[in-house]
Every structure is written in structure tokens, then in C-alpha cells.
């Protein structure tokens, strides 16, 4: 069984990766020529950075050591085109939504409520990266039932 701390650490790991990937996408996105994408990436970057920092504090508050960022991350493919950057950002938010949904299932009380908020925020951000509404965001295991 996944403990609450395990789920928090897994979420922190996802946030480290998200901050890295979104930074990479942002560095390749033109603020003037791709304004909608740039704005969406910037907003997502700031949201994930804030969540990462909050998680670090929360995990430390539990007396545990927050997991550090990985030494290196694999950059998503296709970042040399706007479509590829949209796709990479969308895939990232979908992955984060799955992580947040798992966090919902592993927590309770105020921490769960926070995780529900994170899931809803990620689902909303998916739309800014050309995503379309899903029936079970973050919980694909229900999609084919």
C-alpha cells in the first residue's frame, strides 16, 4: 500500500520533472510569435514550481527528506516545432494529473482536498495545451470499463 509520504514524494518527483520540462519548452517558445503557448507554458511553469516548493516544505514538515531533482531528465521529442511543444506540454499535464489523482487516493483530510485542487488545475491546464475534455482525467483505468 502506498503511504501518504510515498505519494507526496512521488508527486514531488513529478513536479521536479515538470519544472524542468516546462522550462525547456519555455526556452524554445517565442513570447511574441507564439504568445498563447508562451503564456500557457509560463503559467504552468509557475504553478508547478509553486507546488514543488510547497511539497518540499510539506515533506520536510513530516520529518522526511524531500526527494531531490534527478541529475538529468530526458527531453521530450519534437520540441523544435510548436505542435511538438504543445504535445509535450499536454503529455506532461496528463502525467501530472495521474500523479495528483494517485495522491488523492493516498491522502485524507486537508491534504486530500489540496490534491483534488491540483488535479482540477492540471485538468484545466490540459485545455490550454490543446487538450480536450476527458471523462476520467488522471484516472485512465476507468476509461475503458
Amino acid at each position, binding site marked *: *500500500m*502506498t*503511504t*501518504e509520504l510515498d*505519494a507526496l514524494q512521488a508527486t514531488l518527483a513529478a513536479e521536479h520533472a515538470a519544472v524542468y520540462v516546462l522550462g525547456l519548452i519555455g526556452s524554445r517558445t517565442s513570447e511574441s510569435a507564439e504568445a498563447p503557448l508562451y503564456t500557457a507554458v509560463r503559467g504552468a511553469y509557475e504553478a508547478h514550481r509553486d507546488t514543488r516548493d510547497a511539497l518540499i516544505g510539506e515533506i520536510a514538515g513530516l520529518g522526511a527528506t524531500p526527494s531531490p531533482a534527478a541529475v538529468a531528465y530526458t527531453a521530450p521529442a519534437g520540441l523544435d516545432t510548436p505542435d511538438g511543444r504543445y504535445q509535450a506540454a499536454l503529455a506532461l499535464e496528463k502525467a501530472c*494529473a495521474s500523479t495528483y*489523482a*494517485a495522491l*488523492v*487516493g*493516498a*491522502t*485524507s*483530510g486537508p491534504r*486530500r*482536498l489540496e*490534491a*483534488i485542487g491540483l*488535479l*482540477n488545475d*492540471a*485538468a*484545466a491546464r*490540459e*485545455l490550454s495545451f490543446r*487538450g*480536450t*475534455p*476527458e*471523462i*476520467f*482525467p*488522471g*484516472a485512465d483505468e*476507468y476509461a*475503458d*470499463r
Partner: protein
Amino acid sequence: MPDRPLVRRRTAVLTLAATVLATGCDHGDDIGATPPSRSPSASASTSASSPSAPVRTPDEALVDTTIEQLVAAYGVVVTARSLKPLRRPLAPLARAHRRHVEVLEGELEGWTAPVLADRSAALQAVHRSEKQLHAALVDAATRAESGALAKLLASMSASVTQFLSTLPPAAP
């Protein structure tokens, strides 16, 4: 109690029916559907008044309440879809609500058709109803004892968030 599976299980017949519905006819065509009457037999599956009925767990009660809220929201969407300009835009939302009810092993029955004078009134009603449903799903996900149920309900709330963002805007 994070990883406990969904505690609520209806009969195998209902599960099979849900599976068939999920794989067979999920096309959003609910135009012309009429709300079934609330007959005693229609609500038997959620009744706990029988002397031999087992005591419902808090999660079972939560699921039943959530199904009622989903069915009510579905009723608003279906009624709004009777207006031709809204038929297509609201089809994905109707499908989503049907799937949500199916996964909870509920039935789409007993919904009421609100009076919706025109497109503007219909959209306002849908927006209002979906916002209420979203709040209810978040609340239910927060209160669920089972982690798996909490995850499912939270996912449904996120789905409603997405659909709310893509609905045609309600007129001021």
C-alpha cells in the same frame, strides 16, 4: 484507508449492463429521451428500507448521493439538448455524465426536466448545474473513506472542470 477498492458493488447483472452500455452505445444520442417516472421498482436498487437489506456503509451512501447528483445534472443537460443549437455542443457532456453514472453502477432514471425557455436560459441552467455538481463531487471525494473512491470522484470533478471550461458561454 488510501488504497481500498470501491466498496460498493451492485449485482452482477447491473455490472454486466454497465459494461454493455459502455462498449455498445455511448454515442450521446439522448434526444427525445423522456425522464422515467419514479416508480417503486425504478428506485429499488438504491432503497435501503427493506428489512433484509444490508446496512449501507458511509461510502455506499456517498455513492448513492453522488449518483443522484449526477443524474440531476444529466437531466439538465438532456433537456438543454432538446434545443437544436445545443444538441451537438452538449453531447460530450451528456456522454461523460452517463459514463460517470455507469462507473458508479448507478442508473440514469428519475431525472426531472427543468423548464428551459430558450438557449440562453438553457445554458445558464447547465452552467449552474455543472458548478453545483463540481462542488458536490469535490466534497464527496474529500469525504470518501476509500482512497480508490476518492480518486474516482476527484477525477469526475476534474472532468466537470474541463467541460465547464469548454461549454458555450452562458449569456449574461
